[in-house]
C-alpha cells in the first residue's frame, strides 16, 4: 500500500507491534466489565507483585473480553514466537503457578486452549486444544470482535499493528465517497442495533441530503436487559468503532461525530476518551486526517439512562440537550437529524464491522451469511445456559447450535423451554423453532426480532407469563409517556398480566390483551412502543397453555408465580437430608433426620429456597 496515510500508519504500527508481540513473555488480563466484576483487578495485582518479587522479565497488560464471560477472570500467557495460552477462572493461587512455570521456562498447566502467534509450526503444548477446535469457538467467526481480548484497548499502536485504520487509509486514498457507500451496499451490511436497515442505503440517503453540516452518531445506548455486546466492543476495541465512524464520515461528507453512550458504562467511556485522545495525538482524528484533506472529530455525549434514548429520534433530542422523546418519522435523521442536519445513526457493532468490510471488500464480507442477512452477528448468550458469554457467529447458524454447541446446553440437566431474542422489542422462540437459521427475516417470521443481540435462554423452570410480565414492567417503566398507546396501553397490559400471574385473570383478559397489543403495535409513536407488545404476543402464540393454566386452573406450571404456588414435600421422595430445613429462611420446614420433612404453609413465604436445594426433587409446587 502506498500513500502518505499508509506510511503514517506504518510508523505508528511499529511501536504497537513491539507491545503486542514483545520478545519476552507477556501476560494479559481480561479487563472488560465482566472481568473486573469477577476480580480481574486482584489477579492483575497478584501478577504485578509476583513478577516484582520473583524479579521476572515479564510484560503485564490489560485486554478486553474474549467472550468467555463464564470463565472470568481470564488470563492469557503470550510465549514469544509460539503461542498464546488462555486460562480461565484465575485466582491468586493460579497466578502463582503460572508465574512459577514461566520462571522455569516451562508452559503453565491448565490452559483452556491455545492460539498460535503468527505463522508457527511449533509443536509446543500439544495436550492443549487449539482455539479453532474449542467448543466455544469452533463455530464462531469474529469480525466485530476481532480484537476484543487480544489487544490492549488503551494502546492505539496495538490496534494499528493488527491492520487498524487501514480501512480508513484505503478509503481515503483509493476510493471516492460514492465508492465506499457502494461497497457497503454491495456487502449487504444491515444495522446491527435491531432494526436491520441496510447501512449502505442509509448512508446514500444522507450523502444525497443537503446540509451545511452533517453528523455521524454512534448509538451506544445499549439498554436491552441481558445485552452487552456494544459495551464489550467499546471496552475491548474502541478504535474499531472510531475508525468505522470516520469511514462513515468520509462517505457521507460529515466532519463531526458524536458517540452517545450511556453513563452506566464508565469503563467504556474511559476507554473511548483515551482512544479519542490517542487518535488525535497521532493525527488520525482531527483536521487533516492521516495527512489527507479529510477532517473529522468526535465527541462523547453521555446518556442519563433512559431506554427510549436508544431510539434514534429520541437520541437526537437527548444529544441536543432536550428531553429524550421520540418524534414521528419521516423526516428520517439521514435527511433531518441532529440540529436539523443530515445525520447517520449507526449502532456500535455496525460501525465495528465497517473497517474490516472496507479493508477486505464487499465480496469477502458477503461470503458469510444468508441471502438477506450478510456477515456475522454478535450475541450475548445469557440466562439458563452453561457457557454464558459473548459470541460472534455467521448469520444462518441455527439457534440450537448457538445454545447447545457454543453455549454448552442447559445447566443442571433441565430441559430447554424458550429463547428470548431482541430484548423488550423481541419475543420468545419455543423449542420447536430453534433449528431456524439466525437471519433478520427468519426471526421476524417467528414473531420475534434479531434485535441488538441479547439471547436469553430459558429452561423448564421459567414461567412464560412471568417473563412477559417482566418485560412489560420494564417497558412501562421506560415508556417516555409521549403517546397514549404506550403510556396508558402498556400500563393496562401490565395490570392485566399481573392479575393473571396473581390468580385474578379471566379468559376475557386474553381478548383485551390481544386488542391492546394490536392497537399499540399499529399506533404507537416510535419503534419501541410499536414493538412493546411483542413479548406478550409471542408468549401468547407459543405458550398459550401456560396462560390458560394460570387463568383456568389458577396454577403456575413452572412454579414461579408466587400467588399460585403451594410448596409441599413428597413423603415418598424425601430422603430426610435436612437441606431444605437449613435453607428455609423462615423456619417453615420441620422434620427429623432421615424422615420425611413437612412445610408449614402458614409460615412459608414461597421463596423457593427448599425446592432449589432439594437433591431428591421432593419439593413439589
Amino acid at each position, binding site marked *: 500500500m502506498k500513500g502518505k496515510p499508509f506510511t503514517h500508519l506504518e510508523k505508528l504500527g511499529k511501536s504497537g507491534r513491539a507491545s503486542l508481540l514483545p520478545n519476552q513473555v507477556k501476560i494479559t488480563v481480561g479487563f472488560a466489565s465482566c472481568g473486573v466484576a469477577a476480580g480481574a483487578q486482584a489477579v492483575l495485582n497478584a501478577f504485578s507483585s509476583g513478577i516484582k518479587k520473583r524479579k521476572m522479565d515479564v510484560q503485564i497488560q490489560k485486554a478486553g473480553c474474549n467472550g468467555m464471560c463464564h470463565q472470568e477472570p481470564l488470563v492469557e500467557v503470550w510465549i514469544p514466537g509460539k503461542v498464546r495460552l488462555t486460562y480461565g477462572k484465575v485466582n491468586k493461587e493460579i497466578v502463582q503457578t503460572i508465574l512459577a512455570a514461566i520462571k522455569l521456562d516451562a508452559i503453565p498447566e491448565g490452559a483452556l486452549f491455545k492460539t498460535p502467534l503468527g505463522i508457527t509450526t511449533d509443536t509446543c503444548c500439544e495436550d492443549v486444544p487449539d482455539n479453532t477446535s474449542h467448543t466455544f469457538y469452533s463455530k464462531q467467526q469474529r469480525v466485530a470482535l476481532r480484537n476484543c481480548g487480544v489487544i490492549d484497548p488503551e494502546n492505539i499502536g496495538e490496534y494499528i499493528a493488527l491492520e487498524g485504520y487501514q480501512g480508513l487509509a484505503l478509503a481515503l486514498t483509493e476510493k471516492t465517497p460514492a465508492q465506499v457507500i457502494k461497497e457497503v451496499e454491495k456487502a449487504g451490511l444491515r444495522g446491527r442495533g435491531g432494526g436491520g436497515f441496510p447501512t449502505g442505503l442509509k448512508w446514500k440517503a444522507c450523502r444525497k441530503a443537503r446540509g451545511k453540516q452533517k453528523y455521524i452518531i454512534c448509538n451506544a445506548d445499549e439498554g436491552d436487559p441481558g445485552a452487552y455486546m456494544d459495551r464489550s466492543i467499546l471496552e475491548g476495541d474502541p478504535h474499531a468503532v472510531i475508525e468505522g465512524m470516520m469511514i462513515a464520515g468520509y462517505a457521507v461528507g460529515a466532519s463531526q461525530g458524536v458517540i452517545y453512550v450511556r453513563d452506566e458504562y464508565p469503563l467504556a467511556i474511559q476507554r473511548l476518551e483515551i482512544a479519542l485522545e490517542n487518535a488525535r495525538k497521532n493525527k488520525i482524528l482531527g483536521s487533516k486526517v492521516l495527512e489527507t484533506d479529510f477532517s473529522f472529530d468526535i465527541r462523547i455525549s453521555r446518556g442519563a439512562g433512559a431506554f427510549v434514548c436508544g431510539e434514534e429520534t429520541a437520541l437526537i433530542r437527548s444529544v441536543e440537550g432536550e428531553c429524550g422523546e421520540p418524534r414521528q418519522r419521516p423526516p428520517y435523521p439521514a435527511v433531518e437529524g441532529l440540529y436539523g442536519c443530515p445525520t447517520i445513526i449507526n449502532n456500535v457493532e455496525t460501525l465495528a464491522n465497517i473497517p474490516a468490510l472496507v479493508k477486505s471488500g464487499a465480496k469477502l464480507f458477503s461470503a458469510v451469511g444468508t441471502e438477506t442477512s450478510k456477515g456475522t452477528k454478535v450475541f450475548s448468550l445469557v440466562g439458563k445456559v452453561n457457557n454464558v458469554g459473548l459470541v460472534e457467529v455467521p448469520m444462518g447458524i441455527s439457534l440450537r447450535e448457538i445454545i447447545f454447541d457454543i453455549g454448552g446446553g442447559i445447566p443442571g440437566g433441565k430441559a430447554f423451554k424458550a429463547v428470548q431474542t431482541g430484548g423488550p422489542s423481541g419475543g420468545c422462540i419455543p423449542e420447536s423453532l430453534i433449528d431456524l437459521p439466525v437471519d433478520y427475516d427468519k426471526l421476524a417470521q417467528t414473531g420475534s426480532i434479531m434485535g441488538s443481540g441479547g439471547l436469553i435462554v430459558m429452561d423448564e423452570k421459567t414461567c412464560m407469563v412471568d417473563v412477559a410480565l417482566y418485560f412489560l414492567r420494564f417497558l412501562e417503566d421506560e415508556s417516555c409517556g409521549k*403517546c397514549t398507546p404506550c403510556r396508558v396501553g402498556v400500563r393496562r397490559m401490565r395490570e392485566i398480566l399481573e392479575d393473571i400471574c396473581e390468580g385474578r385473570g379471566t379468559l376475557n383478559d386474553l381478548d383485551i390483551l390481544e386488542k391492546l397489543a*394490536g392497537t399499540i403495535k399499529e*399506533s*404507537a*409513536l416510535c419503534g419501541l412502543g410499536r414493538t412493546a407488545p411483542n413479548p406478550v404476543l409471542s408468549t401468547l402464540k407459543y405458550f398459550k397453555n401456560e396462560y390458560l393454566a394460570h387463568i383456568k386452573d389458577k396454577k403456575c406450571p413452572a412454579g414461579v408465580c408466587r400467588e399460585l404456588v403451594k410448596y409441599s414435600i413428597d413423603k415418598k421422595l424425601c430422603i430426610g437430608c435436612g437441606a431444605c430445613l437449613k435453607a428455609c429462611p423462615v423456619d417453615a420446614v420441620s422434620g427429623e433426620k432421615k424422615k420425611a420433612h413437612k412445610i408449614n404453609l402458614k409460615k412459608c413465604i414461597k421463596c423457593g429456597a427448599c425446592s432449589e436445594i432439594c437433591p431428591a426433587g421432593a419439593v413439589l409446587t
Partner: protein
Amino acid sequence: MVTLKIDEIPVQVPEGTTLLQAAQKIGVWIPTLCHHESLSPSGGCRLCVVEINRDGKSQVVSSCVYKAEEGLVVQTSTEKILGIRTCIIELLLSEAPGAKVIQDLARDLGVKPVKRFTPRNELCIACGRCIRACSELVGVSAIGFAKRGYDKLAVSPFYERAEDCIGCGTCAEICPTGAISLKDIDEGDSAVVCEGTVIEGPARIIENWKVGLKLKVCKECGETFAPENQLAYFSKEAGLSKDFYDICRHCRT
C-alpha cells in the same frame, strides 16, 4: 403544490401542509386532542391517526405531523383506524375519566369505558399543550414535564413555585381537559400557594404551578384586570412606558 387523495377526494395543498390540514380543507373530520392550530404539532395522543398507502404498503401515521406528499392515498376511517381510535379513547377514558372533552369524544364515537381498566383520578393526559403554549406562544417556558410514562405530568420546575410564570392563563385556556386550576381571589381573601406561602387578594392563583400573583388594580375604575407580572412582561416585550398599565384597557379607550 402537491395533490393527494383523502377518502377518495382529491385535494391540492401547498408543500409542507400536514394531512390534518389538508383533510380540514375539504371538510373531512379527524378527531384531535393534543393538536392545536397555534402550536407546533406533537403527534402524541394518536387520535388523529390515518392510514396511508405507498407502494402497496399501508402505514398508520398521525395526520397532525405527517406532511402531504404527491400522489399519497390517505384513508381516515378504515376499520383498522376506527379500531385504533376506539381503543385510544378507551385508554384515555381510563386515564382521565373526568375530562369532558374525552367523554364527548367517546359519546360521539360510541365508545364505552372498559370496565376491566382501573381508572385514575387525573385530568392531565400529558398532551403538553400547556407546555408548548407557554414556550411557543407566551415565550416564558415556565413549566415542563416531570417523570415519564404513566407518571408523566405537566408540572412547575421541581414541583416548586414556577418562578417564571407571569400568570397569563394561556395554559389553562389551551388545556383540553381542564386540568389546570386558575382562579382569581378578591381583596380581603387569601390563599395558600407553595409551602405555606399565603397570598392576599386581589391575586391570581394557579394551583398546578404553585403560584399566586398579585393582580393590578386600575387607577381609574379600581377593578383588577391582569397579574402585575404579566403586565410587566408585556411592557418589557413591547417597550411600553412604566405607567402604561396603570389603567385598564376599558378606561384607556
